[in-house]
């Protein structure tokens, strides 16, 4: 393979991996720290994307517009939604079995899909790329690379760095880590664990919605978009080790590379490559790359 093409493929892999990380990081937080299997995580991604589509004209009308502002509004609304959902539904699940968690969160998927269908309809919609990011960079002699895709990668890297910093260097991060290892103990130390978990959940939802919102201009918005993302995100979380942000990052990159080069070199087996990777890793590291 031509080295220039190889480099572009690596860029594709990194870019895909980074976006996967952004969605999966929220899932691994909720799964690992709160112990909840949240099947509705893909729906939050879908909600973010549809908000980016539906809110754009409203934001333009009332707040003066702008893509960044729209994304911010999406994230704020998603945080509020996450806070509410935790209070209304998820807070009852901590002590329940996994089966009940799966049933309820699956129910939420159906509810969100139906609401989406009622509010926005079943059509595919495009979301315009903001004009200041609409250009592209020339790579090789026929190919160009959209600047917007590079922008997505940049946002993902910033969010990853921010999360890492919050979890390892701040008081909030310390409380979250402590809460994950021993709920009762941290409660008896005078920290409101319920409120803490509510915040973690809201952050998880916001991350998924952010991923959906910034991916919307390249992915377009369509029914069922959340479900496709959900499965691959669970793969990332399981490979990385449940609850580990570092693991999720590494796993997302691995999946990005395996998927990209699988499509190029083994097109017939492209659909199973990622799952083979997962099986191979679980064989040697049953708890994922990074044990929480």
């Amino acid at each position, binding site marked *: *393979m*031509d080295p220039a*093409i190889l480099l*572009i*493929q690596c860029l*594709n*892999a990194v*870019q*895909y991996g980074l976006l996967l990380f952004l969605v999966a990081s929220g899932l691994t937080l909720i799964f690992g720290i709160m112990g909840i299997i949240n099947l509705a995580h893909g729906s939050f991604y879908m909600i973010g994307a549809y908000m980016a589509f539906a809110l754009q004209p409203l934001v333009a009308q009332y707040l003066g517009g702008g893509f960044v502002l729209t994304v911010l509004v999406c994230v704020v609304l998603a945080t509020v939604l996450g806070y509410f959902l935790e209070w209304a539904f998820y807070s009852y699940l901590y002590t329940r079995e996994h089966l009940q968690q799966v049933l309820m969160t699956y129910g939420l998927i159906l509810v969100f899909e139906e609401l989406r269908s009622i509010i926005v309809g*079943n*059509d*595919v*919609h*495009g979301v*315009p790329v903001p004009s200041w990011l609409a250009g*592209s960079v*020339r790579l*090789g002699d*026929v*190919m*160009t*690379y*959209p600047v*917007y*895709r590079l922008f997505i990668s940049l946002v993902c890297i910033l969010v990853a760095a921010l999360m890492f910093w919050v979890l390892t260097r701040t008081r909030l991060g310390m409380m979250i880590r402590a809460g994950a290892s021993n709920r009762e103990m941290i409660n008896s130390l005078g920290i409101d664990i319920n409120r803490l978990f509510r915040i973690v959940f809201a952050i998880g939802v916001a991350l998924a919605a952010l991923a959906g919102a910034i991916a919307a201009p*390249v*992915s*377009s918005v*369509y*029914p*069922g*978009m959340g479900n*496709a993302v959900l499965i691959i995100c669970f793969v990332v979380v399981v490979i990385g080790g449940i609850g580990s942000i570092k693991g999720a990052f590494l796993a997302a990159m691995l999946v990005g590379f395996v*998927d*990209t*080069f699988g*499509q*190029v070199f083994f*097109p*017939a087996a*492209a*659909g199973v490559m990622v799952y083979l990777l997962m099986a191979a890793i679980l064989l040697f590291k049953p708890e994922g790359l990074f044990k929480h």
Partner: protein
Amino acid sequence: MKKIFTHTALAAALALSAGSAFAAVKVGFMLPYSGTYAKLGEAIENGFKLYVQEQGGKLAGQEVQYFKVDDESNPSKGPENANRLIKRDGVDILVGTVHSGVAMALAKAANDSDTTLIIPNAGADAITGPLCSKNVFRSSFSNWQPGYAMGAVAAENGDKTAVTISWNYAAGKESTDGFKESFEKAGGKVIKHLTLPFPNVEFQPLLTEIASLKPDAVYTFFAGGGAVKFVQDYAAAGLKDSIPLYGAGFLTDGTLEAQGASAQGLQTTLHYADGLDTPRDNKFREDYIKNFPQLPPDVYAVQGYDAAQMLEAGLKAVDGDVSKKDAMRDAIRSAKIDSPRGEFTLSKAGNPVQDMYLRKVEGDKNQFVKIAVEKLADPARGCKL
């Protein structure tokens, strides 16, 4: 979640009291009324009913009674849903459906019960190929047809090499095989067939692959959300200006609003187009808009409309007596349908022998350019009729 509507035409009762020789013709719609294809199902039903309405609410002098089942585009529920119409409602004619997998199940149920089936969309080659049957007809197309037509156009444009790309499933394979057949027959060469798993939409690695192969043209089969994203990504990767993108018509049908500028100028082949500007099509469009102002007339509405025409041709031959199944089916098979798309006949296997149009995207229209291949018949490979 299953929605079953039973519409009993009021007129049916009147016809009976008037002492007609036969009961009303029972038509069962098995179409998607929910999910991604809901709008397509609606358009097909609208088209069918529009034709019946134009005939004064009767086909060959017979009242028509409608039954509906939502197939949810779910193949695993196909047999069950088909039997609701066949066994419970006792329909004479089945009309359905959009999804190829469901249509296969429907065709099997129709064969088992010897019910006449008219398929108003699903393009699976097998239905009018190895699985063909004397009671199964199609008012739409086979996946092979648009592909074959586009291969001929590409060769005519002077393209020597091409890459085909689609999801790794039957419809994509059938369509790209059709392209390859005519393109290579005319001296071209398909240098690579790229696939990705359905419904994956991460196209970037394959677009890079196309850029490295540098073919003269790319042929693709995608529909719905995948079509929107592929067209956008193709343009964003800077390939649109250097390597022309051809597609089966579904690439740009019902998706133009979402695709925006990235779809402008794309060429696709299908058995229907905007701007045909024939008196027949203009009349159809005008009537359709008058009756269903919320949905623009499209290829799906035409397919529904023609399904009703095919049924009428069959009923006329037997004076509306649906119990004379063989005579009715022979009449449908030999009918000449005056479709808004242009006149067409049916092949032995029951698939339309029709003109395939080359269209070009202009604004929000798939504008007619020329006839790509005249009277194209599906080869019906494997059909023993």
